[in-house]
Structure formats: structure tokens, C-alpha cells
């Protein structure tokens, strides 16, 4: 992900976040060409609550803007004393609704809260599949009853990025044909 090679992005992430990576999917190398594979970036609290996420690769400028939005929104929540788990979750939902309304002209109400499973089914619908990825991300985070990483990552990787969660290693088709293992 090229954005992570940017100096400003690196400095900002290192100053405000502790970072880790995890393999959740795989891809295929066929005749030296990469087929499939993608990336998702999650901004979370230390207890695993997802505040925001980026589905797919983005530019350094977009990445920095989104990372700053997370930090400033979380600081605003702290300023208002919304630091308890439920309070913070409600505050973050509201922030995503604001962005949906401001950037995509979509209105999402509190009454439309749904379980991650229901949201996965909803986002798989054809009308939602046509929406930009980040709009679907904001819908997910504005309406999900639960926002733990474990509840969302499969919806993001499979439902939004159209990849498969997999424990398989990277498959090299050319290597097998050449007799290498």
C-alpha cells in the first residue's frame, strides 16, 4: 500500500497509533502476474472497537485525511465525555452519518441500526453494490449495532472488497508448473 510509504502518513500514524498487520486473505500468482488480493485499513480503540476503516488502497493524501478525521473525532468524543464504550460507539455512528449526509447526500437514521449479519446481507444487494466503497463503509459503521473488528472484517473483505477470507498461502501457479514447491 503506497500511502504507508509516505513520510507524513508514517509520522502521523506512528505519533497517534500503534500499528499491526494481519493476513486475512490470499491471492494467486499466475505467470508472474498477481491475481486478486486487496487491503483494508482499520482505525480502532485499544479495546477493539472500530472507529473507521478504509476499504482498498488509497492515496497518501486521502489516507492522511481519514487518519486525522479519526483522531480528531475521537478527541471530540473525549471532550464531550463520551468515552464509555456505548457512548463512544453512538458518537462515532453519528459522525459517520454526518459524513454520509455531507459527502454522499444519504440520510441514515438511528432506527435503521442492524446486526452485522443483516448489514452483510443488505450490502450484498445490487443497489448497494453499485455504491462507492467508502460510502458502503460509512453505511456499515453508521448502522452496525456492533463494531468490534471480529464482527466487521469479513463483511469488509468479502462484502465490500469482493475478496475471500482465506488462511491459504499465496498460490504460485507458474512455480507448480515449473516443478518448484
Amino acid at each position, binding site marked *: *500500500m503506497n500511502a*504507508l*510509504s*509516505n*513520510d507524513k*502518513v*508514517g*509520522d502521523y*500514524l*506512528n505519533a*497517534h*497509533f*500503534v*500499528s*499491526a*498487520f*494481519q*493476513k*486475512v*486473505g*490470499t*491471492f494467486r500468482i499466475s505467470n508472474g502476474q498477481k491475481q*486478486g*488480493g*486487496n*487491503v*483494508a*485499513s*482499520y*482505525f*480502532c*480503540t*485499544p*479495546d*477493539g472497537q472500530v*472507529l473507521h476503516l478504509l476499504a482498498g488502497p488509497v492515496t497518501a493524501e486521502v489516507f492522511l485525511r481519514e*487518519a486525522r478525521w*479519526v*483522531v480528531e473525532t*475521537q478527541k471530540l468524543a473525549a471532550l464531550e465525555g463520551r468515552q464509555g464504550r456505548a457512548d463512544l460507539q453512538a458518537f462515532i455512528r453519528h459522525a459517520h452519518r454526518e459524513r454520509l449526509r455531507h459527502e454522499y447526500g444519504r440520510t441514515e437514521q438511528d432506527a435503521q441500526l442492524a446486526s452485522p449479519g443483516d448489514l452483510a446481507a443488505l450490502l450484498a444487494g445490487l443497489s448497494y453494490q453499485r455504491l462507492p466503497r467508502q460510502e458502503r463503509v460509512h453505511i456499515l459503521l453508521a448502522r452496525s449495532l456492533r463494531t468490534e*473488528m471480529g464482527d466487521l*472484517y469479513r463483511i*469488509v*473483505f468479502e462484502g465490500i472488497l469482493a*475478496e475471500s477470507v*482465506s488462511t491459504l*498461502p*499465496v498460490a504460485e501457479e507458474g512455480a507448480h508448473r515449473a516443478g518448484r514447491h
Partner: protein
Amino acid sequence: MTVVSSHDNDELTLYCPQGSTLSVPKAIGGQHRDERRVQSPRSLGPPLVVPPIPPRSYLRIALICVAVLVLAFWAQNNSPVFREAPIPTSCSTSNRLGTRVDFVSTPMEADRQARGSAKLTFFLHVAGDFDDSAFT
């Protein structure tokens, strides 16, 4: 095998290879000045004659012992096993994996460090092996 010395009730017996001789320092205890006779049990026949040790052999043994002690002392003070590894205070560039971001080893470690430093966490979910650029 030759039985050099044996107590009557066979509690203390010293066995030596066939044809070998046993040297015992004079100061330790023979009655004779130049040689010591080791009494063998009655059943084994006449006592063996132990030849004297030349004085220069004592000096050689002492020098070898001193050398061994010096080497042991040197090895103990220079062995890497006894050195404490430095505790890293921050992530090194080797944890950046070709980016400008410091990555810790696991998400659990990221959570732990974030709690301790009042930071948030950032997780990258990838397809492939992020720590190998050929497989990311």
C-alpha cells in the same frame, strides 16, 4: 584389569588397566622415600611397585591447572549467554516492512501498547504475506 588396592571387605577398590602403574605423591603417603608399595589383598598375590613421579611433572600439572582456570574465567566473563540483550525502546526501521510505519508483531501487542501510551490502534488487513513484498 589389575586390582591395585582393595579393602578387606571390598568397599574401596581401585581398578587399573592391565600393565598400568599407579603414581602416588611422596607427601601423601608412602613409607619409602622413592617408591611406594601398594598393599594388595592376600588373594591377589604380591604387591605392585609404583614408580616415583619426577618433580618436573608436578610443575607441568600445576601449569595446566592454572591455564584451565584462566580459560574458564575468561569464558565466563566473555560468554554472550550472560550478556543481557538491550530492551528496544521503540520500533526499529526493520519493523517497517518497506513502509514508513512502525509495526508491532501482533494485534494483541498493538492493543497492549496502545493502552499504555494513550494511542489508538491501526490494523492493516492484507491478502498475502505483508512482510514479504513478493507476496503482498
